[in-house]
């Protein structure tokens, strides 16, 4: 475990930088995590982050692509590289696990 200072608050994060307690999350914190990842959050980003927070269990890229907010390509454009991992980190939820 480690601690980070986001938006004036000290917050516990995992070694990979995921929030330990998802309930500590707010949009200001999201903006600062996003900045560290080189992403400037837009309203569209926020809408996706909210969808992700509301649909944490069994979350997949396919599910986000069917959210009505973005399609899969749009999701990659918003969070380049690993969209699910990146958006989960910024949304303050656990690192997505892919099960075998």
């Amino acid at each position, binding site marked *: 475990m480690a601690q980070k200072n986001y938006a004036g608050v000290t917050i516990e994060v995992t070694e990979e930088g995921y929030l330990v307690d998802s309930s500590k999350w707010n949009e200001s914190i999201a903006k600062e995590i996003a900045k560290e990842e080189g992403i400037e959050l837009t309203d569209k980003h926020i809408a996706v982050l909210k969808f992700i927070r509301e649909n944490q269990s*069994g979350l*997949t*890229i*396919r599910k986000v692509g069917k959210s009505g907010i973005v399609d899969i390509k749009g999701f*990659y454009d918003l969070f*380049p*590289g690993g969209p699910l991992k990146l958006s989960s980190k910024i949304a303050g939820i656990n690192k997505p696990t*892919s*099960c*075998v």
Partner: protein
Amino acid sequence: MKKIVILGAGTGGTIMANKLRKALDREEWDITIVDKHKTHYYQPGFLFIPFGIYKRDDVIKPKANFIPSGVKLIFNEINKVEPENNKVILEGGQILNYDFLIIATGTRVSPEETPGLKEELWYKDIFDFYTIEGALALKEFFETWQGGKLVVNIAEVPIKCPVAPLEFVFLADEYFTKAGIRDKVEISYVTPLAGAFTKPRATKMLGDLLKEKNINVIPDFYLESVDNKEKKIKSYDGREISFDVLTIVPVNKGDDFVERSGMGDDLNFIPTDKLTLRSEEHENIFVLGDASNIPTSKAGSVVHFASEVVFENLLSSIKGRKMHAHFDGHSNCYIETGFGKGSIIDFNYDTEPLPGNYPLPGIGPFGLLQNTKMNHYGKVIFRWIYWHILLKGKELPVESEMSMVGKKK
């Protein structure tokens, strides 16, 4: 007369039919099993067909051979289930009423989910090996292939038998080495996962083996489409990989009747309690194996272990008792690694694959996360065990619950 209906006469459905017929009074319980196919495929054997190790006849037997007398076997398509009315409706309108329903209809490959996949190059330069047709077509292709770029790609997870594509590249390495053209074949393993596998220690072990065998791993690649003209696969983030021959593991989905019945998730897998294996929605429906959405491998070993839990909990439910059996997500996979060797992984919901011995601590004879000849023999012998013991619901000398004994942390 009370009724149990089992949908799917694959590994899970067949095991349940055998267990239940033995346990339940014939005067009291009517058991019916439904499947659209008459042939039972030994699916772990498909992997060996492209390399000429197994032939078609090695992996097929009539389903009817494995269904015990006293169980009614119906070959028909399932149109839909009406859980509110405790009814299954078959193609043509036949209705099966049930007191308890077991859904074991598995998963299937859906190449139509990916644009460009099932078009002009399908079964010419693009093959799957998760169907008998694909495996046989690929065998023919490999027999005369002179070399080039072999790309093995997993379109999306979850897939049935997540280690099979790895075994495929290991066996391809051996096959082309023996054919004397390994230096002309470039093998790439393209996966949506971040590495060779999902769990850290197995990923490291398998990643090292891939490197040793000169197989190129391309991670985090989420397939968007296939370009038939340029012979390229394209990812959602704009990457492209050229191939001469593409071996694809298409998107896996549950059976279409699940969608028609409104019982599944985005991929037609049925929301299932991961401990009791009962449907989350309906108290008299159990879901066994690949058809469920439980977070473990879609694999025969899981179905086998899970069948014990479904059996116990169904009997408890029949008696109106609390369900006491809990599934731990136990999965156990042989991994063929080529040149007569193999590895084994054994894990569950909470414990990743660890090194050690299996099933007897310190003795084995199998080595967990090790690459040995004995592990390979295990896989070879398993086909016999599958047909003669496992499908018939007989006891195997392994525990359904995963054991930490013999594992090293």
